[in-house]
């Protein structure tokens, strides 16, 4: 599809579609013959739709040409449009125009970028929620709540001799605590929300030949990442993006380490040290048929700050050898430290479903439990602003409790309201907006 936006979008269309006497009726699909504006040669038969601004995506006049696919036809049409007076859109320009015409707020703009970039159903869902103003509405409501708090205070400052008594401080504090709770609830999804953008870094660790590669291949093979060809999908060659249960993960293939020599030699555990500290989850793979080695026990007790899931591999072998479960020799106190304990067979596929179920639950518990009600904070910018708002409103109630005068305490409310306003839109004399729109690498 080719799209044209701007005051003359309809005029440009008419220059290519000579059988159109005038711009077609808005929002009605029309079949037209497209011709080269210079030599009149036929380009394609296409369905075109005209949108009259401001009732369009960009808020300007907009034409959508649904043409035949392939590489040549759309580019011929685009080329002809440019010769007829158009120009190539810069990255993100359509959305930028929509923002500048007030059709989208800044959160929605970001959601468009996220939607285009989404690599998991969860991210897709979050972005779509933002695009439908889920987050914007929430923030607008919070801001109104904060402004309302100030109004309660100020009323009695400005009208001290009126018939109505002042609003009791207890009521103001009640209202404020509602706002504090609400912001805190939204912030709970923030760390995970940011993981949704990149995928949770999940490191498979374990001794050589415990079956890491088989598990890894089973997980990658079944749920291949959606855009693996695109560079930048993962940070380096060791990472592969996958979605498990609809949530994004970056699986780290430590099997590749053998040449790099980054294994933790003294433990005999293969794991990339540089990943260990930043991992969101570590899957320590051990063989179900062996007792835990000294190295594995040491790894478990030292390990990292990241949650560790113990994964027993090759459970298909247990049946053959008729060995009872519990032969691992896992000390009780260590069992408590584990984030989870799974048993899989990459060979039979047994237990893989449990992996796909448990991993999202572990990493994305707040998002999973938030469901549709609470918008997920997928961007650091949103979380930072909400944190500012939260601390300002908390400081406000503390200030009131300390007996500070209302008009002094209310400076916190103004700061909180400003922080929220900045989420929805910023007016910048410098290039903050350019930075926002630079995220777009396609011309949506």
């Amino acid at each position, binding site marked *: 599809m080719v799209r044209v936006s701007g005051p003359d979008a309809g005029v440009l269309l008419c220059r290519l579609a000579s059988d159109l006497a005038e711009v077609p009726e808005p929002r009605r699909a029309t079949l037209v013959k497209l011709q080269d504006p210079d030599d009149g040669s036929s380009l394609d038969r296409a369905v075109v739709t005209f949108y009259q601004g401001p009732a369009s995506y960009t808020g300007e006049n907009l034409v959508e040409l649904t043409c035949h696919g392939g590489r040549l036809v759309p580019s011929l049409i685009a080329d002809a449009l440019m010769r007829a007076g158009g120009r190539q859109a810069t990255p993100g320009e359509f959305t930028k125009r929509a923002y500048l015409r007030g059709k989208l707020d800044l959160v929605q703009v970001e959601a468009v970028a996220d939607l285009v970039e989404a690599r998991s159903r969860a991210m897709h869902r979050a972005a779509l929620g933002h695009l439908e103003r889920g987050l914007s509405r929430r923030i607008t409501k919070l801001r109104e709540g904060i402004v309302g708090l100030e109004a309660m205070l100020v009323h009695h400052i400005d009208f001290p001799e009126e018939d109505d008594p002042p609003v009791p401080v207890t009521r103001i504090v009640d209202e404020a605590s509602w706002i504090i709770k609400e912001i805190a609830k939204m912030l709970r999804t923030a760390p995970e929300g940011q993981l949704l953008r990149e995928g949770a870094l999940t490191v498979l660790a374990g001794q050589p030949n415990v079956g890491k590669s088989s598990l890894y291949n089973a997980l990658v093979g079944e749920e291949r990442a959606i855009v693996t060809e695109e560079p930048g999908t993962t940070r380096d060659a060791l990472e592969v993006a996958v979605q498990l249960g609809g949530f994004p993960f970056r699986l780290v293939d430590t099997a590749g380490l053998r040449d790099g020599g980054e294994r933790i030699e003294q433990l005999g555990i293969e794991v990339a040290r540089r990943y260990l500290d930043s991992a969101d989850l570590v899957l320590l793979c051990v063989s179900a048929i062996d007792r835990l080695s000294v190295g594995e026990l040491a790894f478990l007790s030292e390990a990292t700050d990241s949650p560790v899931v113990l994964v027993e591999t090759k459970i298909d072998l247990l049946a053959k050898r008729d060995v009872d479960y519990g032969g691992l020799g896992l000390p009780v106190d260590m069992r408590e430290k584990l984030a989870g304990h799974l048993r899989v067979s990459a060979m039979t596929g047994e237990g893989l479903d449990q992996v796909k179920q448990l991993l999202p639950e572990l990493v994305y518990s707040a998002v999973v439990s938030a469901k549709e009600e609470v918008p997920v904070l997928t961007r650091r910018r949103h979380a930072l602003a909400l944190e500012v708002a939260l601390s300002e409103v908390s400081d406000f109630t503390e200030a009131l409790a300390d007996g500070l*005068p209302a008009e002094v305490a209310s400076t916190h409310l103004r700061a909180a309201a400003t922080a929220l306003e900045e989420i929805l839109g910023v007016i910048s004399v410098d290039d903050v907006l350019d930075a926002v729109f630079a995220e777009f690498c396609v011309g949506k």
Partner: protein
Amino acid sequence: MRNFYGVIVVGGGHAGAEAASASARAGVRTLLITPDLSRIGQMSCNPAIGGVAKGVVAREVDALGGLMGQATDASRIQFRMLNRSKGPAVWGPRAQCDRALYPLAVRRVLERLELLDLFQDMVSDLIVDKGRVRGVRTPGGLVFGAETVVVTTGTFLRGRIHIGGEQGMDAGRAGEAPSLDLAEGLEGLGLEVARFKTGTPPRIDGRTVDFQKVERQDGDVSNYRFSAYAREPIPEQRPCWITWAGKDLKSVVLENLERSALYGGHISGQGPRYCPSIEDKIVRFPDAPRHQVFLEPEGLETTELYVNGLSTSLPPDVQLEIMRTIPGLEEVVMTKVGYAIEYDYFPPHQLRQTLELKQIEGLYFAGQINGTTGYEEAAGQGIVAGINAALKVRGEKSFVLGRDEAYLGVLIDDLVTKGVDEPYRLFTSRAEFRLLLRQDNAPRRLGLLAKNRGLLTLQQDEALRERLEEENRLLHWFRETNIEPARVEELLSDADSGALHQPVRASELLRRPRVDGRELLSAMGKSVQGQLAEEALIAVEVELKYEGYVRRERERAQRLREQAGFVLSEDLPYLEFLSLSHEAREKLAGVRPATLAQAARIPGVSPADLQNLILEVRRLKSSQGSTLAS
């Protein structure tokens, strides 16, 4: 009287008196011309000055060298600090004034100004030539030439009074003729004009009030002075009285509603929501069981009382009937009837921040003519217009106060940027920087600004210097004095504040809740003697006590000023900026903001519009730059 003046001020109300005295103090030969010299500085509505936000404005006018503070001190017969129970940043000094003494004090101060002439006459027309004002003309054909003219005609332009449901009568105030010719003349200059209405309540004979049935309200025992520069003797004090209008009044009002000019459909102008007539109160708040009524003394030498809360356009017989339903007023005799008044105003988006008209050079408007209400708002505009008119004559840079510098800055910026859709009154909530705009720090905020522009008299200069020196001494003491725990043990336990374990700075201790500056000084063996020291202490104490908060506000103000650094030239082709919404284009073209920050405050201009504006201005600059290259 001369033929030519630097500044001519038309009108002698609160705006006119301040404008004339300001330009004379600024060293410019000035004429004040008004229909009745005996009514200069008259209080047309309630006999009180100040209140929340308004009191700060009165202090600001004073700090700039104006009359209002001094005249209030000389005539105040009751004083109350409103919001005393709240924080000092929102204290609102308010004085009941003797209606006769106030104008006398104004006249006295005006007549001491060497460069000011007073003249009693109407002005029928302005002389304007090639977009510049040249002088004024009187109905008798007298002509005065001027470099600048300040028009402060209040409610007199096509004023029309309504008492009850008849057609109304032409008047500027009760018993005074309106200005019809001047209104026509101004409209003839191509200015946009609109109508507002306001109202005033009846006055009564105090001898007919049963004071047993009303509640007495005395003022504060205080030698508070509005003026930081002059020390007027304070008159004897008088109480106010409070009573209540209940359901009997309600039924009388409802029975007679169609006889009210307001509800009979005879008034088209918009009135102020926060100063409603009694008809409005009854209709709009049908569930309110009662409404407060203040009986305010009109003066020391009269028993007449002003019935605050009963502003009305009902006919006289109904006014009397409703008053007689009120406890204490059963036998009351009315001395003056209440009335509603409609008048012309000129929507203030036609003004620059200096209050000079954009269309006519040298012509300034101040006061109710700009759609405001209130003596303080009028005086504040008057002094700013007078200063700017004088500075223009002197060929100097204009005088514009920021929203973070003064309520006057908020007032004028609101007027010229947002316009008005009802008579405009100041509130603390209109200010973004309430903590900075206090009554206590007016001299520090504005005194030096005025002094540096040569707007203060020698005596005012001297008083300002003393005041600031005292503040600095106190600030220094609090910041530099270490306090031993033993010295303040008792003070802290009295204040229910934790004991000290090691010496701390006095300023540190002052930041604790309930720790009082004066007590701290006295615990350290220092006393605060005299009014100057007391006033300075209040200012210093607030500044230090809420230092962190005050600093935050200053930082926020600074950030806003940076946005104000994006300058928008006055000739931008807003209507051609098609990327802006239609509404924004029209609004911007009407207001022609000076900076991006001002543009941001215009209602109907969205953040997206502002962003587009930045882009458009840049585009314009680059295209202008490239024309030569082609």
